């Protein structure tokens, strides 16, 4: 996030696109609701009807994958009405001309056609955002998990810059990170092309710095992303894989593809709390200690690095992740001896300019928001105040593209995936939690009652869903929060894993994020009639 979570409350207008905030970032939705109650305008754009739509001043359901079209259309109206911030554009940005030429094409008629949103609603959205003053844009996986993910993000940035909303309190472009320390994992160089703090591995200076600190020579070739690694395994390029705390068997876009790949590996090590689907096919499994059993820091979506403490000793024969990694490094002939996580933290802050001013002592329990370059720097509440990281903010001319897969006669439905409020990611942690399990024990698919009626499917009855990749059976949940022709499948449930249906071939060419949000599928009622629950009850009654 360029701005802060509590800063949302200072906003005059909040535009949420592609985020079911109350379910996935509940404590962010709190701030949104508070802003709304303080008088801010709320715009919600989501292919599904979400809880926040009920409170929105403008709530629209655009077609799956039409985000760029929608944003371009909004910007067209904003420019036509002169609501853009001309002063900001000329002083702080570049590339406007080319961008404006692209936007010129996105007339309301064209946009309405591409997105399924009425021209009137488009106008109201544009007006609410364009005339608000400080407006905050929030988005999540609904924007990034598309073939056009990078384009979607660029369009969000375009919109924010167009109205002068980057670098002011209450404004900003605010991606909501799905997992607790995605931000930290990226900051710490958990990416194939950069060291900590986004210092490129191709940069000679950065390499020299790390090579001196670590006492070794470093590979200058950027590595493979996870979306490259899987085919890499099949092509025999990757032979050994070390998976830490992840469950790609459920989170990877294409289950069959991955399953096959994992079997091809010569050696797979998985480090986790549980024997997850992925750990089950590993050669060695490292039993890791859990959150309460260790200390360390995490960085949340507003760039706040926060410290957590150890509450209980590690269970049985488990070790904190850092200890396992250090032992492995040492066993491979590279001594990694650390007394505690603070030593590691001090080593990494010395190598990472944006974290340079942080120490455990300074973090306390409030944490600090990076960039925090020196010991006397108070941290950064909102970024790009006077200048962008690259100097001038760049407008990108982005043209709208259709999603990789369109519904057709064979696969007439669009399937989208996501999370529900009581579970997290692949469910390895939440499904073993009794109070969360009770809230939702099994998977389900959301279908519009109209579609369900046509197929004579009632609540809880099984549906068979097929895509070009595979098929699965899953109970129906009837709700108008999905439009007719659309299905929503939560990702948490291994027994009806969404990635059996989604595609591994469609991903964003730059960010390598797979298109989870749109697949074409067909739906029919499960062939063997599942008896209704009441009927089962009656039968059981009769027997006993």
């Amino acid at each position, binding site marked *: 996030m360029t701005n802060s979570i509590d800063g949302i409350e200072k906003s005059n207008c909040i535009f949420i696109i592609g985020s079911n905030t109350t379910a996935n970032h509940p*404590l962010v939705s709190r701030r949104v609701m508070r802003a709304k109650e303080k008088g801010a305008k709320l715009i919600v754009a989501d292919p599904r009807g979400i809880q926040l739509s009920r409170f929105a001043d403008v709530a629209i359901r655009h077609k799956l994958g039409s985000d760029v079209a929608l944003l371009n259309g909004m910007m067209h109206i904003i420019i036509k009405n002169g609501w853009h911030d001309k002063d900001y554009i000329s002083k702080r940005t570049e590339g406007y001309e080319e961008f404006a030429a692209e936007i010129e094409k996105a007339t309301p008629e064209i946009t309405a056609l591409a997105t399924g949103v009425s021209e009137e609603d488009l106008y109201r959205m544009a007006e609410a955002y364009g005339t608000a003053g400080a407006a905050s844009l929030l988005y999540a996986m609904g924007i990034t998990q598309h073939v056009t993910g990078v384009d979607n993000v660029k369009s969000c940035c375009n919109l924010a810059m167009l109205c002068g909303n980057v670098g002011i309190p209450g404004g900003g472009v605010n991606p*909501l990170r799905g997992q607790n320390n995605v931000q930290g994992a990226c900051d710490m160089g958990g990416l194939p*092309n950069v060291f900590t703090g986004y210092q490129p591995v191709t940069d000679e200076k950065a390499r020299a710095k790390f090579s001196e600190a670590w006492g070794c020579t470093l590979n200058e070739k950027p590595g493979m992303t996870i979306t490259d690694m899987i085919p890499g395994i099949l092509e025999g390029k990757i032979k050994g894989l070390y998976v830490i705390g992840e469950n790609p068997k459920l989170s990877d876009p294409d289950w069959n593809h991955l399953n096959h790949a994992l079997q091809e590996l010569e050696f797979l090590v998985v480090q986790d709390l549980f024997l997850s689907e992925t750990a089950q096919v590993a050669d060695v499994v490292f039993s890791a200690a859990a959150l309460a059993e260790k200390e360390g820091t995490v960085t949340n979506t507003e760039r706040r690095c926060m410290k957590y403490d150890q509450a209980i000793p590690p*269970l049985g024969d488990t070790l904190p992740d850092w200890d396992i990694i250090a032992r492995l490094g040492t*066993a491979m002939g590279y001594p990694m001896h650390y007394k505690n996580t603070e030593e590691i933290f001090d080593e990494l802050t010395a190598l990472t300019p944006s974290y340079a001013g942080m120490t455990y002592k300074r973090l306390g329990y409030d944490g600090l928001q990076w960039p925090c370059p020196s010991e006397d720097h108070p941290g950064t509440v909102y970024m790009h105040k006077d200048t962008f990281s690259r100097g001038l903010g760049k407008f990108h001319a982005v043209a709208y593209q259709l999603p990789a897969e369109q519904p057709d006669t064979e696969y007439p439905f669009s399937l989208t995936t996501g999370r529900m409020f009581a579970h997290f990611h692949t469910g390895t942690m939440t499904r*073993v939690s009794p109070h969360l399990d009770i809230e939702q024990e099994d998977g389900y698919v959301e279908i519009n009652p109209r579609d369900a009626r046509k197929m004579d499917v009632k609540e809880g009855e099984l549906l068979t869903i097929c895509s070009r990749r595979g098929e699965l059976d899953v109970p129906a949940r009837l709700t108008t929060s999905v439009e007719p022709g659309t299905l929503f499948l939560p990702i948490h449930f291994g027994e009806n894993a969404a990635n059996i249906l989604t595609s591994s071939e469609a991903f964003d060419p730059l960010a390598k994020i797979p298109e989870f949000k749109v697949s074409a599928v067909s739906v029919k009622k499960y062939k063997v009639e599942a008896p209704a629950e009441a009927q089962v009850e009656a039968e059981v009654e009769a027997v006993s």
Partner: protein
Amino acid sequence: MKCTFVPSICSYCGTGCGVLFETIDGKLISTIPMKSHPVSGGKLCIKGWNLHEHINSPMRLKKPLVKTFGRFINTSWDEAIQITADRFKDIIEKYGPDSIGVLVSAKMSNEENYLAQKLARAVFGTNNVDHCARL
């Protein structure tokens, strides 16, 4: 009897709400929202409130495992680490460092992520490091 309240951060989403783990005699009893936390101010969602439950789960792995003849057996840390180190060394020798991939985790701490990419880059000698946030 000893009872403690230890500050921690909820790990179920990127919001990063502040919690206190209530422990009695070294056992995790409950999760309490931390009232003075700058992000969450004493409120949590359903996941945060039940943060302690997955840690107390009987399904947790308690020992490192190695697979021999298709079945997992419990092993010691020394052995698990040694086997892994040997196998990785073999692979690097045979196919070069870029034949290894490391998937770090958005659920680990900063220190652990730092160390994991250091392991990949400095020890294995590859930049094949990624995390699952794309997924």
